[in-house]
């Protein structure tokens, strides 16, 4: 009865606060859409200057979408002046190839280097076949076929990143809005005022979790549905599992937000928790491979809720795993939520021991 009165009040307050509602429901969609377009932008064909390169090699290079420009003579400066991504020079006497890369974007430079060496190798192969047709059979066998365990040859980074992003936005916005919600109740004195009524501490915590939980559920469903249907993010596993993971994550964010608001005296101080409690979560959510991290960093990852959520989301959305395989992650999230909830009830002791 008291709990339902509190839930009703919380929802009513939130519904009247249009800006906050917009932040909760629209902002994640905007950011996800933006990220989607950023990561799916068309790649620009690299520009390569060539000096003394055989015609057949140039054709080979053009075939793999490299824009080739031939020069009589060129130096390092040509690369800079003509905005070339690279310069391939073949020494007329020795036939030795030299590749000068601009390298302002290392990943682009590496890709270009790889393409060129592949084309060059193919040329050499072709020549060998011409000279020695008998050996051709072996060489053709060397042509490789690639198979993928997860995803396919069209998989881009965004496909791996998006499950983590979906989880992170749910975490971030629920954390901020619930934290500030209870904080306002503290700063306006209404929380203290509540303590002069027969309400119990656990009733307040339950009501807050449920009240904001309802909005978190709606947000989760909107964000997940939008990502999958409109943005066409890869979803191999079940959408219900995705929602389940996000709901557990929202519960963790809710209880953590409410708990940290205890230690904030103003909205501004609540914002100060973002770089401390929220941003580091991204680093451990699976965007950077955990295996490559130092041991102590791996240990930190294990105390980050986003680590488990990111792992589970990636498993379901990208790898198509089922509940059985992510149960460990789900249990970890439940433990986080349980710990934070108990701490919340204890933190309210500041006001009243009962």
């Amino acid at each position: 009865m008291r709990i339902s009165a509190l839930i009703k009040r919380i929802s009513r307050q939130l519904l009247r606060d249009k800006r906050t509602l917009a932040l909760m429901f629209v902002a994640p969609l905007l950011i996800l859409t933006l990220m989607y377009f950023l990561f799916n932008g068309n790649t620009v064909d690299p520009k390569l200057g060539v000096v003394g390169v055989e015609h057949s090699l140039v054709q080979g290079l053009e075939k793999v979408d490299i824009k080739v420009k031939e020069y009589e003579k060129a130096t390092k400066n040509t690369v800079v002046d003509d905005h070339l991504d690279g310069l391939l020079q073949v020494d007329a006497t020795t036939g030795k190839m030299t590749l000068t890369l601009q390298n302002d974007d290392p990943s682009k430079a590496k890709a270009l280097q790889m393409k060129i060496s592949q084309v060059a190798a193919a040329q050499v192969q072709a020549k060998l076949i011409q000279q020695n047709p008998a050996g051709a059979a072996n060489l053709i066998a060397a042509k490789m076929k690639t198979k993928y365990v997860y995803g396919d040859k069209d998989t881009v980074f965004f496909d791996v990143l998006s499950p983590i992003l979906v989880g992170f936005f749910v975490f971030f916005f629920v954390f901020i809005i619930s934290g500030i919600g209870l904080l306002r109740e503290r700063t306006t004195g209404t929380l203290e005022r509540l303590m002069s009524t027969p309400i119990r501490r656990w009733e307040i915590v339950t009501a807050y979790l449920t009240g904001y939980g309802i909005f978190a559920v709606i947000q989760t469903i909107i964000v997940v549905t939008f990502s999958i249907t409109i943005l066409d993010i890869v979803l191999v596993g079940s959408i219900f599992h995705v929602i389940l993971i996000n709901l557990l994550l929202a519960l963790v964010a809710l209880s953590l937000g409410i708990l940290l608001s205890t230690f904030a005296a103003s909205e501004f101080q609540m914002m100060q928790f973002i770089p401390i409690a929220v941003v580091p979560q991204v680093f451990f959510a699976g965007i950077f491979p955990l295996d490559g991290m130092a041991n102590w960093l791996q240990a930190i990852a294990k105390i980050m809720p986003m680590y488990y959520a990111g792992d589970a989301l990636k498993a379901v959305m990208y790898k198509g795993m089922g509940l059985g395989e992510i149960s460990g992650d789900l249990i970890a999230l439940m433990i986080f939520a349980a710990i934070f909830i108990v701490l919340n009830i204890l933190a309210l002791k500041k006001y009243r021991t009962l």
Partner: protein
Amino acid sequence: MNPTIVVENVTKSFGKKPVLNEINVTIESGQLYGLIGPSGAGKTTLVKMIVGMEKSDAGSIHVLDKKMPNLAILQEIGYMAQSDALYAELTGEENLKFFASLFKLSKSAQKQRIAYAADLVNLTPDLKKRVSAYSGGMKRRLSLAIALVQDPKLLILDEPTVGIDPELKLSIWNELLRLKNEEGKTIIVTTHVMDEAERCDVVAMVRNGRILASGTPTELKDSYHVGSLDEVFLKAGVNQA
């Protein structure tokens, strides 16, 4: 019948700062009890401890024969805080309804109590307005209405009439006296206004962490050999210094 409130040897300090020292207060059922004293003397701290919102360092507090803090007893206490704690996004009526639903009250009783409390503080025409659009005095009145909404046996009002115009103040005081006389309610009021203190059955002066003097307004004036409570207040300060 046992006294409604018994405060025994209560001591309280915030950090290193002592606020109340060995306070003893007994308030009989049906009494209108006034707490006066300079700003920062500890009146608010004392009433908060009676409600159980603040922990005492030592001593004990009993309300209606139950040791505080006690959740069941809170049903019987109507508390009005010194600073208004209201939900600005909600209307006056929604605020009243919310607080009313935290107490044991039947649906029909709730409706009737909300109407009564709103009417008492002249807020009925403004009930549908959001509290963010209320004036300071209107917020004060709404806080008072909320304190009355569950029909408690004991009213604890922390400076209830600050920011309320003289006409409404008079009618509120008349209602407080009626509640006391006709419904037998026990009322604690803190105030800085001496003609309000004058209307209390017993007045206690809190100063320097102690109850310096207490008694009926007449007794206080006689013991200090002065004609008004204002002079009692001033003289008590001089004696202390």
